[in-house]
């Protein structure tokens, strides 16, 4: 846009998707932020890993009556948001594996235009390094 500065933005998602509004409103920031052409990464830690759980059913029809925004994560690749880091320890603690998560992919326009996974499962040392490399860390 009008800014030529490119900074490294990391969004840290630590909360379950529906108990509070943090997850939904964090995702809204990510989507708006995508228009600014910054270097964006997302980390999912603690209960935040549930945000990426597949087969979420929360709509009015299901009886819960909350907007199911989980499908929006699937669109992140189209917004060039394709660096998604999930904390392995948080998955383990909750009895989850990578197979329980939605398949978030992006088209690799810099290489062979193939569809690739956006998700990396990382340990806590890797997460610490990731955070250290950032200019802006937004924690929700």
């Amino acid at each position, binding site marked *: 846009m009008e800014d030529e500065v490119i900074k490294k*933005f990391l969004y840290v998602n630590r909360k379950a998707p529906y108990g509070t509004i943090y997850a939904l*409103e964090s995702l*809204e*920031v990510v989507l*708006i*932020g995508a228009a*600014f052409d*910054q270097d964006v990464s997302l980390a999912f830690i603690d209960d935040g890993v549930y945000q990426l759980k597949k087969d979420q059913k929360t709509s009015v029809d299901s009886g819960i009556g909350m907007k199911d925004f989980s499908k929006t994560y699937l669109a992140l690749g189209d917004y060039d948001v394709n660096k998604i880091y999930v904390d392995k320890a948080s998955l383990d603690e909750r009895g989850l594996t990578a197979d329980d998560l939605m398949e978030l992919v992006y088209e690799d326009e810099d290489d062979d235009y193939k569809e690739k996974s956006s998700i990396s499962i990382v340990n806590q040392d890797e997460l610490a390094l990731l955070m250290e490399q950032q200019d802006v860390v937004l*924690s*929700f």
Partner: protein
Amino acid sequence: MKFGILVNEGPYQHQASDSAYQFTKAALEKGHEIFRVFFYHDGVYNASRLLVPPQDDRHIANRWSALSKEYKLDLVVCIAAAQRRGMLDENEAKRQGKDAHNIAEGFHISGLGQLIEAGIQSERLVVFGD
């Protein structure tokens, strides 16, 4: 140093908005620049001009308004977060057909792009939240 401030929690319920205020005030008094204060999540309630706290307690919205006046501080309330929580300025109230508006002096409503811009333009973006 040039700071951006993000306030993610509501007034009185949570310390975040008090800490954000104290930090912002101290930074300004030391001669630092505050690029913008952005209110998000329940933080948007800090901008309500209808707060009526007990007289022997701090008035959180008025306190921000006064600081804004003194230092020409840019206080921005996220429009998406504000609308779903019933926080409207005069223009939005008119546009949405509502009979009241409740944004305190010195605050204004704008989009999330203002938060991203604060992240880009500030040397440090300080987040106050849970």
